[in-house]
């Protein structure tokens, strides 16, 4: 089985935000929620880099270890998904996540949190694949169609890579070797406890 991961090659990202838009559109993500976002480091300085970030689908996911109702589960592909029917909107996962992935629609007064929403790696949720219920709660299930996440597929510079961790790490390693520089596999050491060494 593949172990699905994301890798953003920041040396290629041009901050076009196509990934962000593609994700919002594909999944009809609620207002105010960005499952993916692009952060620019050293903005305006020499050596500025942009990184596209979403849920990293961590190994031993911190969100899962704090969730009071155990609503997270990791698929055979290593994708971290959650069950919105069980979620109580406590917010704990958002404090545990190193990547700011879990977000909440505001459902009532005093900022009451609704069911947590985050990147699903375009893999839906616990409902039957391609069902309407799954689409409404989690968005499209592209993985079940044999397709990779749309953000990475849309990326104009192929900066954002999605796929089996070993394969995308190899692609990145080759790039770094070829061009002679690389700012690193952003988030990998935090999410997977290891980074891509060249």
């Amino acid at each position, binding site marked *: 089985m593949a172990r699905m991961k994301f890798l953003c090659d920041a040396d290629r990202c041009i901050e076009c935000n196509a990934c962000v838009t593609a994700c919002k559109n594909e999944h009809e993500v609620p207002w105010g929620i960005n499952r993916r976002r692009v*952060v*620019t480091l050293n903005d305006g300085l020499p050596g500025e880099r942009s*990184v596209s970030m979403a849920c990293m689908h961590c190994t031993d996911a*911190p969100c899962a270890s704090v969730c009071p*109702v155990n609503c997270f589960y990791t698929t055979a592909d290593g994708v971290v998904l959650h069950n919105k029917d*069980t979620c*109580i909107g406590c917010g704990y996962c958002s*404090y*545990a996540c190193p*990547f700011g992935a879990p977000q909440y629609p505001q459902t009532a007064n005093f900022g009451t949190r609704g069911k947590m929403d985050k990147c699903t790696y375009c893999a839906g949720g616990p409902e039957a694949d391609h069902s309407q219920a799954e689409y409404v709660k989690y968005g499209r299930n592209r993985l079940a169609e044999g397709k990779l996440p749309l953000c990475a597929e849309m990326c104009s510079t192929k900066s954002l890579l999605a796929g089996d961790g070993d394969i995308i790490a190899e692609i990145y390693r080759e790039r770094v070797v070829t061009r002679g520089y690389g700012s690193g596999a952003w988030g990998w050491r935090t999410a997977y406890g290891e980074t891509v060494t060249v």
Partner: protein
Amino acid sequence: MKHLLARAALALTLGLGASAPALAQVNPTEKSVSEDALFQALGSGDYVVGRITIPDANAGYLIKPDNKIWAALQGDTLHMVSIVAIVGMIVLLAAFYMIRGKIRVDAGLSGRKILRFNVIERFAHWTLASTFIILALSGLNIIIGKTVLLPVLGEAAFGTISAWGKIAHNFLAWSFMVALVMVLVLWIVHNIPNSVDLQWIQQGGGLLRKGVHPPANKFNAGQKVIFWAVILGGAALSFTGFLLLFPAEAGTPADWQFFQTIHAVTAAVLSAIIIAHIYIGSVGMEGAFDAMGSGEVDENWAREHHSLWVEEVKGSSGSARAHPAE
């Protein structure tokens, strides 16, 4: 830049990517931010943060490595601490019950009653008690429910209960705070530590051996400990709980994590203390429950456990007919 790209492209087409000349050339990207360099410079509690174009400023935090520390604290350590505190206290009390048994009124019941807690005191106590118990159960559910209840109830029922528990926890906290203030105002005068307490502690409160009855005022040293644990613990829970409820008031997410930790530890410890309190106020001691039930206790119970208080309310002669001032 164009120049470099052209050269990189050339290197690529020539298949010379890793060759020494390509690396030796001046590299305008060598000053670029790299994760390695950022992480080396990152102090504890620091984040990798940049600029974001969407309105949510929090989205600018790219990586917060230390969130994993809190996740482990909450998911593993506090989870264990809570289980140990609760189960440990229950085991301890079961052992105590097996060895010492129910603490009886040695002199037997006299049949004469003394008013111990008036209706306002009992109202305050039971408001505090009922809200605390629901808060403790729904709160503990948040941290250990997935280990204790989930396997029994199944995911759907457990999810429903937890959702209601969260609502109950958020709303009942306010009644708890009101009751806490009432209890503080009503009983603080009786809970100032004094020299009688030392003697009481030296004799183990008379809890350990039959027939030992150190003198005590309205509240003995053990009860004063309970009182102050409830007041201080309750205040800490109220303060941190308020900030958890309104995260914007708590400050940064790291501050929130700190308050959550205090809340969880205090709740575990206070819950354990209260289990002991419930034990001694019900099955653990004959005649104790009446004080909070009907409000009236048997005179012999009062003489054994609160001799100085009995003298106070009845006069030192202890005439059975004299009534408390109220």
